[in-house]
């Protein structure tokens, strides 16, 4: 089992200590936050592997803390609650990994869910990044195609000649094809 860096954000000293004990005894590094603001600050400065947030945390609202940490890709979050209130499930569905813990917390459930969320969050991030880069590639390809078409029309070239010309411009100016395409598009259209 790996060693993770985990933040436990819970205003209740008693339950925070129990949680801390469970995680420590499994070899994880545990950091504590007693209020919402500290949880956000601690998460931002430590960039931990996981943040556990109790619904009853004081200061900043638990949903807000979770939303910030999750949507800014600081770390995956698991919300902990005693009862499932209205809207709770809908909120958790927005997070990158759908998971929550019901209190009182069972150690075996805690440890398996911890592992589950951290590993799945990694996969989520890598897929997300891959999609981003593919999107960018498609955008670039579109621009290059458009610029090539324009060049063919303006300079009366065939497709290969236009492409060769663009590639030469790119090499001569040591700029990516995409930038060359953008310049052609602004110059001729």
């Amino acid at each position, binding site marked *: 089992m790996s060693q993770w860096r985990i933040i436990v954000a819970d205003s209740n000293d008693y339950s925070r200590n129990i949680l801390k004990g469970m995680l420590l005894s499994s070899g994880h590094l545990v950091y504590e936050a007693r209020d919402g603001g500290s949880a956000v*600050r601690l998460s931002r*400065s430590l960039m931990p592997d996981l943040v556990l947030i109790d619904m009853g945390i004081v200061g900043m609202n638990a949903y807000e803390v979770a939303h*910030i940490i999750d949507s800014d890709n600081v770390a995956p979050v698991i919300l902990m609650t005693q009862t499932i209130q209205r809207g709770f499930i809908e909120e958790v569905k927005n997070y990158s990994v759908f998971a929550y813990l019901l209190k009182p917390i069972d150690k075996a459930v805690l440890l398996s869910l911890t592992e589950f969320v951290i590993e799945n969050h990694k996969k989520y991030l890598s897929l997300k990044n891959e999609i981003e880069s593919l999107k960018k590639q498609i955008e670039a390809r579109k621009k290059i195609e458009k610029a090539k078409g324009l060049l063919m029309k303006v300079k009366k070239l065939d497709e290969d000649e236009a492409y060769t010309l663009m590639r030469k411009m790119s090499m001569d100016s040591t700029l990516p094809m995409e930038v060359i395409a953008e310049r052609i598009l602004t110059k001729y259209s």
Partner: protein
Amino acid sequence: MGNKYSAEDVLRISKERGVEFVHLQFSDIFGVMKNVSIPIEELDKALNNEIMFDGSSIDGFVRIEESDMYLRPDTDTFVIFPWRTTSGVEARLICDIYNPDGTPFEGDPRYVLKKNLEEARKLGYTMNVGPECEFYLFLTDEKGNPTTITQDAAGYFDMAPVDLGESARKEMVSTLKEMGFAIEASHHEVGPGQHEIDFKYDDALATADNVMTFKMVVRIIAQKHGLHATFMPKPVYGIAGSGMHLNQSLMKDGENAFYDPADQMGLSKDCYYYIGGLLKHAKALTCITNPTVNSYKRLVSGFEAPVYIAWSGRNRSPLIRIPAKRGNSTRIELRSPDPSNNPYLALACSLAAGLDGIKNKVMPPQSVDKNIYEMDEQELKKLNIDKLPDSLEEALVILEKDEVIKNALGEHIYNKYVEAKWSEWDSYRTYVTRWEIDQYLTKF
């Protein structure tokens, strides 16, 4: 911000990007941003200038009986917020305020700036302004309320790989860039927890809009980092206050009107007169550029804030400094303003003071290239160097006698402003402060 949108563009982009809410923004007379938020279905109506709000609910606006006001969005100010909110994609439009009869509302600070810019345009000038805005980042306490403890001082996680203040500032810069700002510099300032972000100069109206947007972004991003951003001029006694230096220049026929290569200092007659005007009205102007009780606790010697009414081509201590750059970058830097001011009014009144100098050919006194703080009373007297007001009270008394600044504000805003500021001063004057308790409670 230079991106000119038509109403159709705004509608099209909103649809393309899936905008759900639009915030119609405007400023009250104290420079506090107000919002009327509408769902996307109402955007069409808003762009037809049909959105109304109750003006009597806004500080310093109007009486109950004349409370219906119309918002006219300026489509050039359309921006989609780059941060994710729980309620989906949001955008904003800065608005002008109009009376029901279709005339511009005299109490709208944005209108006041526009009016003064129009005055300048009649003389052939346009105004460019580049602000340097400082602020503090403080921690929040366990209840989520702001404190005056800084991250730097707390240093509670020495082994942490990320400096919280730095990373918050970086995100502010990247967010502002996404919103179309050209950021020139951003750095940690003198005080612990103090930061500065400078963005590129623009025409005065765009800059005032930008300052409003800037403050909003800084506050929101700080909150997302568990920090509280404050533009209070002097939040902690004994450490440097936060200023908002205003780099100003005038353009005429596409050329910088402050530059003259033939002059010994490279400055044109207009530039000297503009400085002359600013110095002449410096005291009354301070009431607008430094509008709070707290502002005057920043204007003390020893903290890089100006105290004396003088100008210099080199030294950084006087009220007006001339940065070394010439040619199209020739400009003057007014160093007294602080970020608690209303940027629309601060720019309008600076411009009016400068233009008064140009119209009446007011030559400024000799520039002072020595450190003024090292001069004694006699030397100051010999050079005829006066001081900025010591308090909001002094500034108010002087403002009441300065027709140029009063005229720049217009009757409506002037009256409301002075009334509110006098009551602010009275409330401060009669309040028993911690300092008094510490000094006198046990002594007497």
